[in-house]
């Protein structure tokens, strides 16, 4: 019986999409409003999906409290109410698109000891979402 458990977590953060590899005109053309100089923010929702055998003693894939604490430490505390460009070393030289943020969250949660991480689905707004499930064969970008 294949079971996956998904938990949704919300955080709010600001970002600005700007690539130093592109000219100002290209940045403006490609990123549009997201390139405005002082940034903007979103209410992100991260869906974290894990799988594994059910613990026969608890009937659970993962202990929710353990998962919540791990996600809080690895993602919510460093990301919530932060500026992704300025406050996170991962985005010093990577554009904090929601694609890259989704990969970063996956990498931060993959070491969760209580179950196997299957995928991250990240909602940037109610209309845009991105999913990352690692790379085939287990390597990561």
């Amino acid at each position: 019986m294949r079971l996956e458990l998904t938990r949704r977590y919300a955080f709010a953060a600001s970002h600005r999409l700007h690539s130093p590899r592109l000219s100002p005109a290209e940045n403006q053309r490609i990123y549009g409003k997201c390139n405005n100089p002082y940034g903007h923010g979103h209410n992100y929702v991260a869906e974290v999906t894990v799988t594994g055998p059910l613990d026969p003693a608890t009937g659970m894939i993962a202990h929710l409290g353990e998962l919540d604490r791990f996600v809080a430490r690895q993602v919510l505390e460093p990301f919530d109410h932060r500026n992704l460009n300025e406050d996170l070393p991962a985005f010093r030289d990577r554009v904090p698109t929601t694609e890259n943020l989704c990969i970063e969250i996956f990498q931060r949660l993959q070491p969760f000891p209580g179950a196997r991480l299957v995928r991250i689905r990240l909602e940037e707004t109610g209309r845009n979402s991105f999913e990352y499930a690692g790379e085939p064969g287990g390597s990561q970008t």
Partner: protein
Amino acid sequence: MVYLTRKIEFSAAHRYHNPDFSAEENRRIFGKCNYPNGHGHNYVLEVTVGGETDPATGMVLDLQELKDLLDREVMDRMDHRSLNHEVAELAGCIPTCENVAAVIWELLAPKIRRGKLARVRLWESPDLYVDCYGDGGGW
């Protein structure tokens, strides 16, 4: 292959308690879910069936048939019930979202007459759900 999803809601009570654990262990592991008199949720169940459309009807399966099946197998059995005390299929197991989703899969899978059950998604609250794919590889 086309997939069709029907969503229903039911409300039920449950309590997490393992008689093999001490009172302290039950409280430590299950937290509020171990409070002695239980609590409840509005569960949302999404049932997805995959199959080829019948050329005569354009349908994977008759939605009314699926609705009747969900009424009979899930609503009549679980809605406004205690999952610990009133659902025979859950007797002796802790009614976690995982176990309830697996029981719903077992109840529905053999009774879908056209198409195949592809996924059971059970929401326990707006920020927690479990997907069950049976023994299949998913979709």
